[in-house]
């Protein structure tokens, strides 16, 4: 059990290292941010001095070695725009993203799981067909379009919620609902498939033939067994939560990592881009390891194996 979790942590750490290295090399091989920082009239000496002050005059291999040693101290260098340490800028925005991500995931699970189960139990009915159709369309709907429509409906037509900003619970509603709607179709589809799979198992037939009520079979036996694939899928959804929140944070002016990443990419602020990427990868890793631990609680069989 402990070894299993340990393996996952090592795998994840390797993945983060590879991702960060890829981003580092792409950033370093593709151009020179210095030119963008100085006026076009800057002399060659000024450019060279600026380059040296950021350590960009050294060979790539040396820079990579320095980068790796700095990484072990979570030092990503200073932001090119604000001159503040990149890590500081990312850390102060981390809470906003975490709050948004979890509230969206919880809302999506609270709506999507019952909806998927309902759809599976009513398989073949018009209600089921509607759920399948809508969730299919939902997967093709861009998250920023959902966001714009929600702003239009609930901040312009019926002005009951703030269109953007951060601070109160009311500000959280629209971004959360946007990401939750974006996730909902995936969660619903997965729950539907998992429930259908469990419903076709022989033990369900046995339970029903023993005269146990439909409701009891569904909630006590089917739901528990369907929980494992559903939880697996929720862990994969975290990638989409973060991917969606990059866009949603930008629309709603939500001061999270996603907005910072988009802004830093726009300004080609390399240290901040790397720091954001690192923390996104780290956040997803931590979430997935936590879920692996959660499995052992949901499913005693895993505890027995490991």
């Amino acid at each position, binding site marked *: 059990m402990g070894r299993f979790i340990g393996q996952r942590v090592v795998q994840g750490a390797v993945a983060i290292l590879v991702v960060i290295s890829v981003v580092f090399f792409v950033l370093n091989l593709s151009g020179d941010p210095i030119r963008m920082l100085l006026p076009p009239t800057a002399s060659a000496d000024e450019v060279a001095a600026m380059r040296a002050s950021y350590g960009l005059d050294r060979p790539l291999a040396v820079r990579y070695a320095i980068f790796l040693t700095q990484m072990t101290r979570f030092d990503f260098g200073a932001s090119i725009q604000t001159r503040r340490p990149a890590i500081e800028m990312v850390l102060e925005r981390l809470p906003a993203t975490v709050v948004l991500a979890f509230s969206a995931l919880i809302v999506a699970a609270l709506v999507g799981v019952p909806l998927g189960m309902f759809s599976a139990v009513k398989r073949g009915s018009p209600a089921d067909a509607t759920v399948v159709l809508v969730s299919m369309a939902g997967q093709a709907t*861009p998250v*920023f*379009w959902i966001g*714009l429509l929600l702003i239009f409906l609930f901040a312009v037509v019926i002005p009951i919620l703030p269109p953007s900003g951060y601070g109160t619970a009311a500000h959280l509603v629209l971004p959360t609902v946007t990401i939750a709607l974006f996730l909902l179709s995936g969660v619903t589809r997965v729950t539907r498939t998992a429930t259908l799979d469990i419903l076709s198992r022989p033990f369900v037939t046995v339970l029903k033939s023993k005269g146990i009520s439909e409701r009891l079979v569904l909630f006590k036996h089917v739901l528990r067994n369907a929980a494992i694939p559903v939880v697996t899928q929720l862990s994969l959804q975290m990638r989409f939560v973060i991917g969606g929140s990059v866009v949603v944070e930008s629309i709603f002016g939500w001061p999270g990592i996603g907005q910072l990443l988009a802004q830093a990419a726009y300004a*080609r602020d390399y240290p901040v881009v790397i720091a954001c990427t690192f923390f996104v990868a780290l956040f997803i*890793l931590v979430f997935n390891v936590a879920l692996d631990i959660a499995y052992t609680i949901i499913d005693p069989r895993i505890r027995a194996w490991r």
Partner: protein
Amino acid sequence: MAVGEGAARTGAASGSFRAPRGYARALCRHPAALVAHAVLLLIVLVALFASAYPVDPLQQDLMSSLMPPSLRADPIFGSANALPPFLGTDSLGRDLASRIALAIQISFAVATLAVGIAVVVGVPLGLLSGYFGGTIDSVVMRLVDALLSLPFVVLAIAVVAAVGSGLVNVALVLGLTGWVTFAKLVRAEVLQIRESTYVEAARATGCSHARILVLHVLPQTVGIILVNATLTMGQMIMAEATLSFLGLGIPLPTPTLGGILSDAQQTFFAGWWIVVFPGIALILVVLSINVVGDFLRDYFDPRVRM
């Protein structure tokens, strides 16, 4: 021997094409897929002939700014244009219908290029990785797992920060981050094909590894490549729209679905059509591609085949 086995596989397992007549018959049994094929065909025609639309998508006319959709020729708008603004105009008085048509063309151009790059990079890596195993396999798979652990959009943004925006750059970024699914799927196929008797027979008759890979293994993976290319196409169109929406994709004044929606963000308080129509266009494009892709997957998958 090799030929006989190959023919037997074609009938029994995933891989090579079947007769087009079988495809049409299968299509007739799936009304939803049939509709999706028709819609997609229509969209592709719009994309191909977008520049033939008689209204200039870049022509600004502040007199006819923010005109609602209308089917009647407008005296102001109509004096310069052959057609009424049947999807309305944007804040600069540009015709929305012609902008959306051109944007769809650009979406397809970027996505096709990106999928092409992803296939060219991902398929050979998957083939080599699955066929030879060993070091190359573990290196490629570490890279694949690492890149898959991050949200696609985050990765694309980080790379765009390096190479800059623009049509070719966006296609390059999406291709170079999207090859991983091709490598992963092709590798999984090759792992099975490698063990088949016809590969063994080819090796026994003295075929070189290169010949076996290109003539005996690659043709068997065409089905899965085609399915994934279709599904990836939808993902790429969505990703391009997202990048353009964030201002990191294709720069103005080129119309893109993401760019039009980003513009709309500033002015949609004045008119719903600027948000609604580009969004619906994007949904129709991605949805029809997804449905066609799902149909292709079922068509090529022997377990689902009726």
